[in-house]
């Protein structure tokens, strides 16, 4: 067949679709196909250049980002201006999920390290979906709640370990 005609009639490969990618992300791995297609209509795909700021500490946060391609650096900035890297993330990693449900300021900054495509999921879209399709919204939120509580659990455990190791640092917090 002619290449031109072949291109026109070629179907979009399933592996290239956004829904397929979202299913491959660990957070949404448990979603069924229908919920994944719902999610696809909900997210925003944003393209970033290398070294572009995604958000800064103190920005109003309203959602989470999943990395589709590229690399992202999450860092803290001290008042003196020095930066400390918190994490370096690659494809299928996600960040910023703590502001998805409750409005809060960003507690760290994030920037891209190379040309990056991010998939953003925001609070306004989730609440809108909850009105229209409560079932789908419930399944998506459950996935996110699992991850957030897992992370909270790890943080709790880490705090407990630190408290047992250095009890003197925690004297101030008790009051």
């Amino acid at each position, binding site marked *: 067949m002619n290449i031109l005609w072949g291109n026109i009639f070629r179907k979009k490969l399933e592996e290239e679709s956004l829904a397929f990618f979202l299913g491959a992300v660990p957070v949404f791995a448990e979603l069924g196909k229908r919920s994944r297609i719902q999610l696809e209509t909900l997210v925003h795909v944003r393209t*970033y250049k290398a070294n572009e700021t995604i958000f800064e*500490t103190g*920005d*109003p*946060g309203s959602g989470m980002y999943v990395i589709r391609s590229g690399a992202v650096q999450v860092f803290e900035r001290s*008042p003196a201006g020095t930066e400390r890297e918190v994490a370096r993330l690659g494809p299928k990693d996600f960040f910023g999920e703590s502001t998805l449900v409750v*409005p809060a*300021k960003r507690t760290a900054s994030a920037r891209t390290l190379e040309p990056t495509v991010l998939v953003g999921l925001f609070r306004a879209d989730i609440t809108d979906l909850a009105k*229209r399709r*409560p079932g789908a919204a419930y399944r998506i939120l459950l996935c996110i709640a699992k991850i957030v509580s897992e992370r909270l659990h790890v943080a709790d455990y880490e705090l407990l370990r630190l408290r047992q190791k250095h009890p003197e640092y925690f004297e101030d917090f008790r009051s």
Partner: protein
Amino acid sequence: MTPPSIPLTRQRNSRAQAALLFVALTAGIATGLAIYSSASAFIDLMRTATAVLFLPLLLALVLAFLLDPPVTVLERRCGRSGAIFVVYLLVAAGVFLFFNWLIPHWQNAWTSLQADLPRYTARLTVYLRELLDRMQAEFPFIDTHDLLGRARSLGEELVSGVIISTPKSALRIGGLMLMVPLFTFFFLRDGGRILRGCISLAPNRTFEMVHDLTNLITAQLAHFIRGRIIEATIVGLVIYIGLSFTDIRYTGFLAVFAGITNLIPYIGPLVGMVPGVLVALVDLGVGGQFWWIIITYFVVAQVIVDNFILIPILISRYSNLHPLWVIIAIVLGGKLYGVLGMIIGVPIASTVKIVLSEIRQYRRSFSLVDGNIDLDS
């Protein structure tokens, strides 16, 4: 001998510069004028092109906001498009039944109104003349002739306008009946997608904030528009019921008029009263029924129902406009779009206020005014 030649070249230079400046300025001004005239021609063209679309788009937007809640509820069962079809079917059935009931009444009322209108306007002129005579007796320096003539010609204009423009407005209403449901359908089905497309144009850095703010503002606007329409409908109904207790004619017209003018705060209710009071004065005279009509308009509809019950429940404090802004909005709207502009000027001003206060609220809640937070403190 070089020194004397320097001023010469300088002079030549400055002359060349002056010439260049002159040419550049002339070209600049000419270009500016050309752009201005073509731009104003373009804007004129756009205005005439969009003038036909303005009213249907506005009505469709308001209708889309009104019908969105039932569509959203039904969407859980049968998908978005299906839900819109079901709601459309219900609305169409309701409208059909309503018109079925209305049209015989309407025709009677309309023909008798066409006969009665000159009587009412003539009576208005008489009242005005009496008022002026009394005023002239007290303040002899007021020149009255001009005012009276204008009032009479205005009344005659109104009567002839109503009679002539009936077929024309029927044509326009036919166009509206076709365009408004179509636009509403697409606003209901694709409104979210259109908004998403607009938001996605925002640069990466501000995208998140724009997205969040747009949703907050849309929610406030939907609340405001629904609240205003429901308020106007209930006030119209209350006036209809109140007037039904008396022998006054054209109860339906008067109630619809009062409901529509109720969309304008402060001034609207007063304007809405005028035809009712006039008809009552001409047909019933000053008596018990007349005072009952005044009480219905003022105390029952405005004070009790609107101010004590509806406004606290339906209208948020965000959309409260200062009376000065209300007057400015009415005048500007009237200047731009006539009577329609007077009615929609205030809601549009409220919309602008809602957008601004929502942005201010957002900035305050994240204290964006003071800049970044200090995590170490």
